[in-house]
Structure formats: C-alpha cells, structure tokens
C-alpha cells in the first residue's frame, strides 16, 4: 500500500542533539536551586511579616544564606540572572530586599570567580546589602543602582556602582574600596573602620565614622585626612 507520508519518514529521527540543550538545562537547574535556597532563607528569616535590619539578624541571615548555597554550583552570570528572576516575581512569590540582598551578597562572596559583574540596570527594584562582607581579592561591579547598606561590613573587596546607592553605604566596612559613579544617600560610612568610599556626585549625608576616608567628586570630605 502506498504511504503518502513516505517522504517525511526519515525526518523525525534526524533531530540533532546540541550542547546548547545541556547548557540551557543546566542553567535552568542552577537558577531553580538558587531560588530554592532563597526560599529556605526566607522561611528561616521571615518569622513575622516584617524583616528588621538588626545587626544580629543580618549576621544570622548571612550565615543561613552561606549554608544553603554551599552545594550549589553557580557562576557570576547565574547570580545576575537570579536577580532578574527575583525581580520578575514569576518563579519566586516575594522579593524582600533585605534577605534577598544578603543572599545575593553571599552568592558573590562564595563564587569561584574573583571579578563579578552584575548588570542590574533593567531591574524594577533595588536590592539592599549588595557587596555585604565582600572579601579581599574580589571585585564586584554593579551596573545600575543599588539599595541601602551597599558594601556594608566590606572586608577588603572592591565595589563599583555605576548608578547610585541608598542610605548607609559602606556602613561598618573595615577595609576595601567602594566607588559610586552617581549619588549616595544618608549615613554614608556610618561605623566605618577603614577603607575608602569614592562618590562621583552628591552625598546626601555622612555617618559617624571611626576611620577610613570618604571622597566626593575626587575631594576628601571625611575621614583620616580631614581636620
């Protein structure tokens, strides 16, 4: 009997497997694991509906974040993609800027790469605590704006923000350098114990600092060299 579909028969078997299939699937898997880790952190942290920024609480959240990401194999690009997944709110039901930022900071601090670039300019919301505890030898470049507590407790790393940051930038940092191309908010350098903050434009307010230096438009405005 004549088969009218004879011509099409051999087409079905000839789909070729490409490395792209594995690469895309592996990336999706990593993002799913990162999302799951974030979910665990939020479960742990969000006992009440409000998340307060308290010293102990931040330390505790960071510790939890470090634990949940231990077994995940990710790279710097995955961190950026995860930030957008957080922002879109499609796969993760809620973005809480504090814990989310601490989680992203933990990811940056524990990735194998030393130079991390996060292109966050397209994000609708900003994350707090980006660059929290960034260790010596690592650099983080944020393209776009960052929220409050950017580079807080910085431990020798280098942070560059091409946009602006919120309040409490570099709070409690001990060493390292933060460069902000645009503006930063109030209490900049609060409890700062060392390192440098360079701001391209306006600083809305300086914090009480113990040591370190703050520059605005290339000129020192606070710290060891002043007065």
């Amino acid at each position, binding site marked *: 009997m004549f088969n009218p579909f004879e011509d099409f028969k051999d087409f079905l078997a000839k*789909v*070729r497997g490409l*490395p*792209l299939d594995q690469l*895309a699937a592996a990336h999706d898997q990593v993002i799913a694991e990162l999302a799951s880790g974030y979910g665990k952190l939020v479960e742990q942290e969000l006992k009440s509906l409000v998340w307060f920024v308290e010293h102990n609480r931040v330390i505790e959240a960071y510790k939890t974040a470090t634990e949940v990401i231990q077994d995940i194999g990710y790279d710097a690009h995955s961190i950026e993609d995860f930030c957008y997944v957080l922002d879109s709110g499609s796969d993760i039901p809620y973005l809480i800027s504090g814990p989310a930022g601490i989680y992203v900071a933990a990811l940056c601090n524990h990735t194998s790469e030393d130079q991390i670039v996060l*292109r966050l300019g*397209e994000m609708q919301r900003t994350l707090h605590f980006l660059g929290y505890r960034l260790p010596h030898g690592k650099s983080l470049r944020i393209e776009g704006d960052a929220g409050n507590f950017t580079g807080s407790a910085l431990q020798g790393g280098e942070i560059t923000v091409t946009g602006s940051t919120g309040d409490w930038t570099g709070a409690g940092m001990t060493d390292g350098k933060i460069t902000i191309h645009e503006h930063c908010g109030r209490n900049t350098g609060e409890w700062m114990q060392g390192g440098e903050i360079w701001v391209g434009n306006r600083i809305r307010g300086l914090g009480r600092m113990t040591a370190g230096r703050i520059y605005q438009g290339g000129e020192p405005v606070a710290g060891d060299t002043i007065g």
Partner: protein
Amino acid sequence: MDHLFEIKLTAPWKDQEKREEQLKEFQELLKELWPEVRRRHLFPEIPMPRFDNNHGPVAMEIRNKQIILNLDYIKAMSTILPPSTVLEALLDHGISHYTCCPWDLSTHLRFYARAKEMLGEGDLARKATDIFMDIVADTHAVKERQSSLPLLYKSGVRTGLEELICSLYQRIWGVDLGCPEEDETVSRLATIPYLDKRRWMASLTRFIRGIRPLLEDSDSSIPDEHTRMGQHGFQQYAPEEIEQALRGFAVEAKSPEQFADVLEDLQNQLEVINEDANEGMGHGAGKPVDANRLYYMKLAENYALPLRKKEMKGSGYLHPHSHRPWEVCQPFQDLDPWCSFGKYLPGITQVWERREGQIYGKTEKTPNCLVIIDSSGSMIDPRNHLSYAVLGGGCAADTYLRHDATVAVYNFSDALAGGRELLPFTRSRSLIYKVLCRYFGGGTALDLDEVIGVAEESEADIFLITDMQITNLDQTICRFSRLQNRVTAVHVGNKSGALRFIKGSVKNQNISVFGVNSSNDIPRIVLGSVRNYLAAK
C-alpha cells in the same frame, strides 16, 4: 574592513557576459537544490528564491517572503566551498526565518519593541533583534534540518561581532568553527534557551543584557550590515500580516507612546495602509500615519460589539416575484426581455408578476450614531496613556460602521467657549478616529442646542462617554430625557456627576447608563451596554 569588501577585491566582475553565464549556472543549481531544501524544511509555502544581480555587501535578503541571494557573495564563497553547500546554507538560513524565528511580524514587532525599550536607540534595537533572530534561525536549522551552515560560518573572514557569534555557535553547536577560546560574553550567551519559543522574550532580554556593551561600544563601529546574513528588515511581510500584527501589538504595547515610538521607527519599512488615501484628490506632500490614531484604531479592531438593528416601518413595496407568459392584452412595462429569448410573442415572452412582500409591518435597520466624547482636563490624555473613552468611542463607532451606518463625532471640552469639534455623519474611519483622538484638556460644558439639534435632525443613536464632571449636567439630563433617540451613556470613574446622571435618567426608557471603575472595563461595558440595552427592550 568588512570581509565582503575583501571578497569584492578578490572576485571582481569585469566581464558582463561572464557574469550572465555564472548567473545561469547558479540558477540551474538553485533549481536542482530548491526541492531538496524545501523537503528538508517540510515544504514551506514560499516562492522560489532569486538572485540579485546588484553588488551588495550581504549574502541575502528577504522581501515579500522571497529569498534574494547575492550573486557576488555566492561566487566569492564558491572559491572556498562547493557552490551547492553555500546555496543550501543560505537557503536554510532564509527558510528558518520563515518557519521558525521570527515566524511572523507580530513576533518581530514584539522583539523590536522590547529591544527598543532596553536600548533606547532604534538602530541598536534593530541590530540586537536581527542578531538574536539569526542565532535562533541558524540554531534551528542546524539542530533540526541538518543544515550545512557550520561550514559557511567556518569559512571566510569575520568581523568583530561575527567573531563573537561564531564563538557562540562553536560553543552551542559543538562544532569547531576555528574561533579562539570563548570570552566572558560568550559564556553569558551560551546558556540562553534560544529554541524555546515560549521563553523568547525572556531570552531576548538576557541576550541584549549580554551583548549590550558590544552594541553600544562606539569604537567597535558595527556596520549596518553587521553580519554576513545582513539585516532582516520589515519589508518581508505582506500587507495583511502588517494589519494583523499591528492589531496584536496595539494590545500588547504598554502605552500609546510606545506604540507610536515603534511605529515611527518602522514607518519607512512597514507599508501601513493609510486610510486617508481615498479621501479625494489634492495637493501637497503626503503625511505620515498618525500613530496615536492608528493605535486606537488597531486596538478597537480587537473588540467586535454586537448591535441589534432598530425596528422601523416597512414600505409595502410590490416586488417582482415570478414569471408568467405575456398575453397581448397585457401592458408592456413589466416585460422581462432577458427571459424572453429576445422575442415579443404571446406565450413565449415572459412578464413579471408582482406581489406584495411578506412583511411584518416593521423592518430592522441600523440607525446612525452620534458619538459624544468628553476630552476635558479631567479625562486622560490619549496621547500619553490608554484612554478608555477614546477606545470605547472607537469600538462603538466601528460597530455602527460595520452595520453600514454613518457616524458623527462630537468631541467637547468647554464647548461654549469654543472647545469643541463636530464631525458630520461620515463613513470615513480615519476622520472619525482623528476627531476622537483630539484632546482639548480644558473645562467641561456641552453646547446642548448644537448637540440636540444634530440628534433630533438625524434620529441617530447617541453614545456619550464622559466622567460626568459636566458643568451643565442637569440641563444635559433634562434635554436628553426628552429625546426620542436611544442614548447609551458611559461614565468613566465614580465621580459625583455620575450618580447625579444615574438618578436623573433612571426613569427614562431611552437612556442606559453604565460605569467604568477599573481599567479594563470599558470594552466590556460597551459590549454590555448594547446587550443590556437589548435586554431592556
């Protein structure tokens, strides 16, 4: 500079006759290859490709679904690869654009709009969109159609951007294309699921984020023909497809501004049907299509409103019903020469027998419509944000036009102070939308004598859409309630005037009032208003 310029130098065409011979050879080859390529792509409905005899820097272009191959490019590449391989690879690429990505203009427009939103500049957006679509189409051809594209990409000199794309192909296809070790951008781009159609928009966003520094780098001087496959403009689509895509894009656009912005960029390439074209002769240069008007026109086309015709008295006209043979004693005026074999003979010549039609005393007809739209300062400016008043007015006008009626538009702000425009009854959709889209932005008062005059004279239905913040609202209610015309009033929001209007008109059978409280309600309310009105009858 560009590898294609190098190709020109190595393969100059001096002899026209030789060129003609080459063209014939390639045409013969194309005739042989085309059925096989079509077979591999499951027989897409596209015309036979042709060769372009002009010198051009890119390998191919697509116009009206037809692939146009560059003879120079193929000749030059044929010195490195067998001509059949070059041709097959180019055809695979072109057909994949048709069968896979972008597939249709709607997808292409969505890509472009997203890219424009991210990159800001039209040129950059076009480049980013083209490169993304090329990658998807090529990957589809390689994965599912056993294409020889890798051989083509492996050969020839590559520009900076092409080098990057080849590195990406090398990584995601798993084929050695002779590219250096991949860089940071390639590893960023390599994890994007290009072949997952459902995630194309997210993939494009990730792709642009990855490639943005390269695109924006002014030193890289990416030419217009940024890859060997060249630009894939919007000329490849048919007019019907453009109409359909614009309808879809009007729904998806975030604001009239975005729609206007994208359309302005593509005006030269998209052959948008200008509905002003048949409005008579005249002098002067043609005007570009008003994007805001087009936005509301296309958006309104997505809603089809039901409308029952109004009952009117029949004429009792005697109509020709059947034939019977003509007799000599009968009059001549009812003779039907067409059914009489051209003869005037009793018994052969046929005569019409007239009967009165079986009518019920009333026939249904669609009345004309007077759309009264409020464009005072309290209403949304239709140029910046989606105005549900304009959309609602447009939907109502379209419905009447579809039923062969005519529509008049009365756009008012403070009409008594001159803030009004009256368009007489017309069937020109373009003119109707032009008046609907006008925004005065002043105070709010109706010139009742003028409106009532038009309504009474025409016996048309009235469709009033306003926020009811009208200074002479009480007089308006009073005058409208005395009319014989059907009035459908829609109030936008729940301002105090709306309640007054409802209370004032509740006893009047000819007035139906509907409110809009949320953003998506207007089209539904307009639909509902007609239905509820019919139910009320």
